[in-house]
């Protein structure tokens, strides 16, 4: 039994993606990422000298500031800041610029479901725009479960409210490699199958969680391809202009 989604998408279909970089002129790197109607603006300032008090001075430090569209900053924003900070710390090469702080500011422009994955993708694009050294990108997707056990990707706000459980999953991006396939496996799985970050809401069975992870992994391929195309295009444009 197929799920009918209101906007006519199939369960595994993502909303239209749009990404533009270098939109803010004062910041060192910026990006705007939208998935359907959810739009997030990310700006990166850094690296700046010095780390905060309790941070390790032998490594680069990141701070994230999350600004909601309306309302005061509360625990929800603090949690998002911490998740984003730890995700960024795990994808960036921290030893290149030790004893520095890089600030990532996230401004929510519109929230129509799947906000945290959108923000993570925007932050990644902004970090690339700023030239912060990274090991790989973090590709984020939201997967939710309907009560009949079907998994649906990239829900909008109405769908999120109706679902029994949802999972925000972040994977490394898929690699285009000249090496033969078997050589880059870790524990028998390709590197892009590992989960960087996972946050779940609602109760689901363990098998349902694995189903979400499977669907998420499949979606990262299309998201990674979008990232790659977007970055290569702007590279071509800037090399033509320069």
């Amino acid at each position: 039994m197929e799920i009918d989604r209101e906007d006519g998408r199939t369960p595994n279909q993502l909303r239209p993606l749009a990404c533009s970089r270098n939109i803010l002129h004062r910041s060192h790197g910026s990006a705007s990422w939208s998935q359907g109607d959810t739009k997030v603006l990310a700006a990166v300032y850094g690296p700046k000298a010095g780390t905060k008090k309790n941070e390790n001075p032998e490594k680069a430090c990141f701070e994230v500031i999350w600004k909601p569209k309306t309302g005061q900053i509360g625990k929800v924003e603090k949690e998002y800041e911490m998740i984003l900070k730890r995700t960024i710390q795990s994808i960036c090469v921290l030893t290149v610029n030790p004893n520095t702080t890089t600030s990532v500011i996230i401004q929510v422009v519109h929230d129509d479901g799947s906000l945290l994955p959108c923000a993570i993708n925007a932050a990644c694009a902004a970090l690339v725009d700023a030239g912060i050294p990274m090991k790989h990108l973090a590709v984020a997707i939201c997967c939710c479960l309907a009560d009949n056990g079907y998994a649906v990707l990239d829900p909008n706000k109405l769908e999120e409210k109706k679902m029994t459980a949802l999972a925000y999953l972040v994977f490394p991006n898929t690699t285009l490699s000249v090496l033969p396939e078997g050589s880059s496996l870790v524990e028998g799985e390709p590197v892009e199958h590992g989960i960087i970050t996972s946050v779940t809401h609602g109760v689901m069975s363990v098998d349902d969680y694995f189903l979400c992870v499977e669907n998420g992994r499949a979606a990262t391929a299309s998201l990674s391809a979008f990232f790659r195309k977007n970055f290569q295009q702007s590279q071509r444009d800037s090399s033509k202009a320069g």
Partner: protein
Amino acid sequence: MGLPDSSQDLTSEMEVDAFRRIFPLRFFERHLSESLRPDARPLDKARDTIVNLGLVSTADGSALAKIGSTTMLAAIRMEVMTPSTESPDEGCIAVEFHMPPICSPIVRPGRPAEAAPVISKRLSDTILSSGMIDLKELCLVSGKAAWMGYLDIYCLDADGALFDAALLSAVAAFSNLQIPVVALNDNGRIVAISDEKEQDNASIIEEEAVNKEKRKLTLKNIPFSLTCILHKNYILADPTTEEESIMDTLVTVVLDSSDQMVSFYKSGGEALAYSSSIKSCVELARKRAKELKEILGEMDVD
């Protein structure tokens, strides 16, 4: 020649404590290769867990949970409030997690811990989404009065696995909670009935008791959590603060009593979680849930 050689010379001369401070990762990896940790625990074993109920006499329910050295004190106060119009026969629970300066040297009065609001929100989400408490049980008069439970959890000693200990103390406090006796008086307001025996019969006849005696909440689908560290091929259950600061990949799995997953929380970290690690963490969480269920079962009468 480089650092490795000189450290090998040093290790034969260096004291254990100095080696632990200067090369913490190497110190731990030496232990991990023997499938042990510095406190002689095997990799999949959690620390000793103690739960004590009913310590705070002024609160309607309270509990102290200790996992190793991590100590959490949870207390619940019930207050009457008007329910919202969208859910007129449901009460409400507000969860707050505090990290006072007593718990850790990095928390100072002017510098609140970054982890506190995050753990607070995660606890709130876990307790409400697990369905442990039926909010309809907190209703007094539909549409007019319902109970609001303020759950405050104080961290007295932060030594790793804060979320696990906080969730355990919250669950124990709810199992200890006794909803006070109230009555609806003439003005239509809810008043508390005191336990004093001097209350004369006249006033009891005037006030219609809404609930006759102190009652406890029925808890179903109790959530139990386990935090693990992923480091290379090793999975360490129930880390201490020292282990958390050296190996930064933490995975928290929350399972409820019917083996459903309430939460799988991994927030960044150097190591990626592959299917095999996820399965192992879930297995460890299952074993831990059984242990915790026994410990709580010894406390509860029902």
